[in-house]
Structures are given as C-alpha cells and as structure tokens.
C-alpha cells in the first residue's frame, strides 16, 4: 500500500468524513455519489408515481373523469419517460451499484471517481432538461417517440429527446467505470470465480449500457435533427421510413429492459442465499445465465414490431430467437427456488421482497413467452395485456429487487436498522396492491382494450376501477415505506457491522463504511456464499 492511508477509527465514516453541502457536491466518494443518485432518482420516482396515479384516476370512468384527452396523453407520456429514463434504468446501477459494487470488490473507489461524479451531474442535467418541458408545452408522444407523430406533434418533444440523449451518456460513463473497476480493482484473491452474483449482474448491465446506449444517442440525435431541419430519414413525407426508427429505438430499448432487470436479479441472488444460510444453487450456471440473457438481449429487439409492417422473415427470425430468452431466465428462477431447498429461511423484509419478486417476475416472464409467440402477439400487441406484462417485469422485477436491496443494505450505509414490523406491512401492501392493479389489465388486454386510451367502452369499466384501486394501494405502501425509512435514518437503533451475517466483502467493514471503504484491504480466500460450519 502507498503511504497516503489516513489512520481511521470507528468514529469517522464516509458520512461525516467531510462536512457541509459543498463536500457532498464535489465528493469523489462512490458511496456519497450513490446516495446523491438515490435521492435524485427517488424524487423523480415520486413525480412519475404521481403521474401514474393521475392516469389511473382518469381511467376510473369512461370518458372524462378528471382531465381532457390532451392532458391524459401527456400524463402517460411523462409517467413512461420519467419512470424509464430517470428511474428504473439508473436506479439500481446508479444508486445501489455505486454504493455497493466497489466495496464488494474490496476496492477503495471506482476506477474513475471524477468521471463518476461527472456522470451524476450529466444525469441530473439531462433529467432537468427533460423535466423542464413540464413548464413548457409538455410532450405527448409516449416514451417511445414513434415517428412520424413525434416529428409532427406541436409539443416541446425536442427537450425530452435532448434530455434522454444527455442522460444516456451518464449511463455509458457509469458502465465504463464499472467494467474497468471490475477488471482492474478486485481485491487480492477475489478471482472471477469468487465474484458475488450482484457483481456479475452489474458487469453484464454495464456491458449492455456501453453497447446499447450509444445507439439511443444516435437515434435521438437524428430525431432531433428531423425536427430541427427535416433531414427526413424517419419521415415518410420526405421518403424516409418510420419503421426504421422503430428498429433504431428498440435496438437500444430492448437491451434497456435487461439493463433494468439484471441488477435486480443480482440483488435477489444476494438476498436469497444470505437469508437461507445456503450457497446459491449452481453459481456457474447463474453467472453464465446472466450473460446469456445479456447477449440475447441484442438480437431480439424486433419482437416489439410484429405488427409494424416489417417483413415476415424478420418476424420469423426474431420470434424464434426471442424464445431462447426464456431458457436462461428459467434457469435463474429455478436456481433461486432450489437455493431455498433445505435451507433455514429467515423471514426478514429483504427476503419477503425476494418472495414477491419471484412471484411477479414469474408471471411477467411467462406472459412474455405468450407475447413472444407470433400469433398471440398479433392480438395482444399494444393492448393492456402488454401493459400488464411489462409492469410485471419492470415494476415487479426491478422495484421489488430494489426494495429488497434497499432494506438489505440499509444498515450498512446508514448505520441504523430499519423497523422490521412496518417494513413487512408495507411490503405486503405493495405486493397485494401490485397484483390488484395489473392482473385485471391482463384480462382487459385479452378482451381487446388498447393501451394509451383516454376513453374506453363501458363494459371495461369494472376492471379499470379495480386496477385504479390497486394503484392507490401501491402508493400507500411506498409512502409508508418512505415514512419509516426516514424515521429510521434519524432515530433508528444502531446497526452492527454485519447484521445479516453475510459473507460478501461489504459486510467485512464497519457500518457505515469509512471514507475509503476498508481500514485494511481484505484478502479473499473463498467464494461469496460458502455458508459452512459456524458461518451458518
């Protein structure tokens, strides 16, 4: 070790290492940057959530309930864009990833701390640019920005496009940072075979971000110029091809779906072994499956376009490949279940969220197979069936995983314990509310109710109303969670260094961790899940 290492004592940690708002805004400490991400993203999560409630309220009755069609189109557009670009894509990598990943690797920081801080501010800038449209003309294209509507609409779409464009680079830089960190900054003895699965998941995610996001960048770039100067590549009036835009968009946005879900899978793979006191079932298969999913992610994008008018050959190819997504995903789900087999399962909140994750993600995944099949997709495409499906995977998957991780690592980074009772209540509330909201939408979709509808036929009313009620249950659950977590931050009981008796490196340092994560860089001698002898 070089000579700069300051002598730590238990009193000083990364939270009180530097004082004052400035020391936070200019910090290079990945943990602080992680917390800044977390805070920012949760603010946008609140905004996006409010929009979703507005949408559900409007759909409580046919015709006009609380707003006119124009406002409704903007409401669901904002709900979509905010939740996708500003919440679930950066949520786990940006917030939890930054917090945990370097410590799991036994590193003092990410490879490029300045770049890391930069990417936070880039994200913030992009998010603010996009959000600024709330005070301009708004935007009503849907988060998919399909041409030619996105070229013709009078709303200030271009700011949202530019915002997403900018936020993309935040993702790219975070990805680069993580990859290099994982390659170069592993603690002595931490071989590839000993990496925790969360690290593997973050690794795959970063690869996806670095490979896919630039294509989003070029897409939005061209679309912006389409609006500015009418270059016509995507504009049929000038001879362009609107379907080409969809190819561009989904070449990014399908991998993006896995950018959202993979880290959540990583978290679940951490939580289940710890609370079952048992090694993860089939570590190698799990790691391989993660990369299997990541790679396949790039060759299935046009399964969003079966009815778009693309060639039948394309439909054939993409449907066939898409089917193979189910295999690695299946492997992961089965292995998680098998991990619980003959364990001793502790019903702590993270584990409850893991259970809910397994439930909703299984539903989401299986309905995914139905949508991947050509014939069924023709009927279900762009109906509420699809809406329900991707909420089950993205919201169910990512948010449940995130909540699991949040509670799992809460003691580590705040140094306080969250209250177990209230946490369980809110978890159950969210889980039930979630199913009440989205199960009816499967039926609505099957009956043929198209998505993005401001107005619907009377006989869809009942199911829509159930769905709306459910959405408010979810909201209640999250607000309650916010309440007890904030309470825990100020006056929760002090947490020990390793409350869950986990074996991964982040538990081998004090909570909260010191400024440079470890008082002495640990040397790894065994795998992350070897719950043997006294470790049980």
């Amino acid at each position, binding site marked *: 070790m070089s000579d700069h290492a300051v002598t730590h004592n238990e009193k000083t940690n990364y939270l009180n290492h530097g004082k004052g708002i400035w020391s936070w805004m200019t910090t290079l400490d990945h943990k602080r940057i992680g917390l800044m991400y977390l805070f920012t993203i949760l603010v946008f999560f609140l905004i996006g959530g409010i929009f979703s409630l507005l949408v559900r309220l409007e759909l409580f009755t046919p015709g006009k309930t609380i707003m006119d069609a124009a406002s409704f189109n903007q409401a669901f557009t904002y709900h979509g864009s905010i939740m996708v670009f500003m919440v679930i894509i950066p949520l786990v990598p940006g917030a939890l990833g930054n917090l945990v990943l370097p410590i799991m690797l036994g590193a003092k920081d990410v490879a490029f701390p300045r770049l890391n801080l930069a990417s936070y501010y880039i994200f913030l800038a992009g998010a603010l640019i996009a959000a600024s449209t709330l005070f301009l003309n708004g935007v009503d294209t849907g988060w998919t920005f399909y041409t030619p509507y996105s070229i013709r609409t009078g709303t200030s779409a271009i700011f949202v496009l530019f915002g997403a464009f900018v936020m993309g680079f935040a993702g*790219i830089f975070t990805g680069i940072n993580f990859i290099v960190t994982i390659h*170069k900054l592993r603690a002595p003895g931490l071989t590839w075979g000993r990496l925790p699965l969360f690290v593997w998941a973050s690794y795959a995610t970063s690869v996806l971000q670095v490979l896919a996001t630039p294509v989003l960048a070029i897409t939005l770039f061209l679309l912006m110029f389409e609006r500015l100067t009418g270059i016509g590549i995507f504009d049929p009036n000038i001879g362009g091809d609107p379907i080409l835009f969809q190819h561009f968009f989904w070449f990014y946005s399908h991998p993006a779906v896995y950018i959202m879900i993979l880290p959540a899978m990583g978290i679940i793979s951490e939580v289940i072994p710890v609370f079952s006191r048992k090694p993860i079932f089939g570590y190698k298969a799990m790691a391989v499956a993660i990369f299997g999913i990541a790679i396949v992610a790039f060759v299935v994008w046009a399964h969003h376009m079966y009815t778009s008018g693309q060639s039948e050959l394309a439909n054939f190819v993409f449907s066939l490949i898409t089917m193979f997504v189910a295999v690695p995903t299946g492997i992961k789900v089965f292995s998680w279940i098998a991990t619980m087999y003959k364990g001793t399962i502790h019903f702590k909140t993270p584990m409850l969220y893991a259970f809910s994750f397994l439930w909703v993600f299984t539903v989401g995944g299986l309905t995914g197979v139905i949508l991947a099949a050509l014939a069924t997709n023709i009927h279900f495409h762009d109906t509420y069936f699809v809406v329900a499906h991707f909420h089950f995977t993205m919201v169910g998957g990512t948010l449940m995983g995130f909540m699991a991780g949040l509670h799992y690592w809460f003691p580590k980074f705040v140094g306080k314990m969250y209250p177990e009772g209230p946490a369980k209540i809110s978890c159950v509330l969210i889980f039930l509310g979630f199913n009440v909201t989205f199960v009816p939408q499967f039926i609505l979709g099957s009956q043929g109710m198209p998505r993005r509808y401001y107005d619907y036929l009377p006989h869809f009313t009942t199911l829509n109303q159930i769905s709306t009620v459910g959405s408010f249950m979810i909201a209640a659950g999250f607000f309650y969670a916010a309440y007890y977590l904030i309470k825990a931050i100020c006056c929760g009981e002090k947490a020990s260094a390793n409350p869950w008796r986990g074996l991964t490196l982040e538990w081998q340092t004090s909570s909260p961790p010191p400024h440079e994560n470890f008082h002495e860089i640990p040397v790894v001698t065994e795998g992350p899940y070897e719950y043997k002898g006294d470790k049980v």
Partner: protein
Amino acid sequence: MSNSHDSSIRPHAHHFDSAHHEFESSKQGMWLFLLQEVLFFSGIFVVYAVIRGLNPEMFAAAAGLLDVKMGLTNTIVLITSSLTMAMAVNAAQTDKKEQCVWYLIATFFLACGFLVVKYFEYTHKFHMGILPGAGFLNPSDTHVIIAQTFLISAAALTSFFVARSKTGFRLSKKSVWISILFWAVSLYLTISYWVGHHGEHRVVGQDAQNLIDQFAKAPLFFSVYFGATGIHGIHVLGGMVVIAWLISRAEDAEFNSKYFTPVELVGLYWHFVDLVWIFLFPLMYLVA
C-alpha cells in the same frame, strides 16, 4: 504490492497500486469509450445501408454531385494528421518534449484544415440548394447556424483549456497563439458567411434540379451525407479541443516517458476519427 517500476517517480491516484496500473486502467476505459463510439456510428452506417440498398440508382446519381477532389484532399489531410499524432505520442514516450509540442500543433492545424475544406464543401452545396431532406432545393440558413454554433463553442472551449494550463495565459506560449488563431478562423468563416451569403438570392443548381426530377428520394442521400460527415465533423472538432488541451500541457512539459497517458489516449481517439473517415470516403464519394 506495488509491481511497477515507476510508481516511486510519479504519484498516482491512491485507489490504484501504481502508475502503470492506473495507465492500464485508463487505457481500458478509453477503449470502452471507443467501443461506444463505434456503436454510435453504426447507426449512421445502418441508415446508409438501408437507403442505398433501397435506392441504388438514386444513390449513384446523387453521389455524382459530390466533389471527389475535396474528399480526397480531406482523406490525405486526415491520414497525415494521424501520422503526426502517432509521432507526437512517440515523442512523448521518448522524452522529446519540444518535438511532442510541434507534432501536436501540426495535428491541430491539419484537423483545422480538414474542417476548412469541409466548410467550403458544405457552403457550396447549400448555395446550390443541395441540403438534406426537406431543405432540398429550398435553402435555409438553419444548417449553417447549427454548424457555426459548434465551431464557435469549440473555439471557446479550446481557449478555455489553454487558459487553465499550469503556467496560465501567456502570449509567449504557442498554444495561446493557436487558440487565438482558431478563434480568428471560426469568426472569419462565420462573418464572411453572414456578410457574403446570408439572405442572398441563391441559384438552385441545374444538376440538383435534374437529380430530383429523376429521383424523388434524392434528398435522402444528402441526409446521409450531411448526417455522416456532420457527425464525423463534430468529432474532429472535439478532437481539436482536446488536442489544444494537450498542447498547452505539453508546453508545460507535463509529459515524459514515465507519464504520457493523456497523449496516448487522445491519440487513440484521433486515430479512431481517422478510421471512420477511411470508410466514409469511399462510401460517400466513390459510389458514382
């Protein structure tokens, strides 16, 4: 656990073991950045493939309106700049500090030359009414405005980097003169455009007219042409900015055989920009 010969000589960010470790990591970071650059450009190449594949005749005909001589000039200019860049890196690695500065300056001016040629190529096309997509045959200044915005902001950034170098903003420094020159050039181009051409009555080129009569989709070729070369041009601009930054640092003698990471990384980037052009030149100019 330091395994590096030079960590004692140059201090390195303390989360790395050694300067060498830091160098290797930074380089990998740069390669990952180039990877995303490739994917970024791949979008343009897809558009190219699609539009050319669907309208081969139109493509060949439209490409006839491009000026091969200018394209060739630019190719040579850019390859030369790649050469000088490689020399600059070599000079830095072998402690030839003065040479390094001169090679970087050469690279900078070659890049500048590349853009000047592009500038004349573009404005000429604009006046003949050859613009991308909807603009075809009815010229507007939008494109010029966008281009010049990039130009000016690049000039501004350049002088910023020059100014923030260790020894500050001294007129005795080459880098200072460079940034002043760059400013002068971009301002000259801007002003000359607005004085000379702004709002003038434009004569729509007959060949452009014939082209569109024959192929209704011809404007799409120029969407691709201006899109691809434009985005590439922006990368050249960006390159010039960082090279200017290198120049000012090299003048402060910050690079030596022990520490030359920035030179090497910018070198990688610059060669990549060259690499893209190596494909753009035949794809755009030589299909006629």
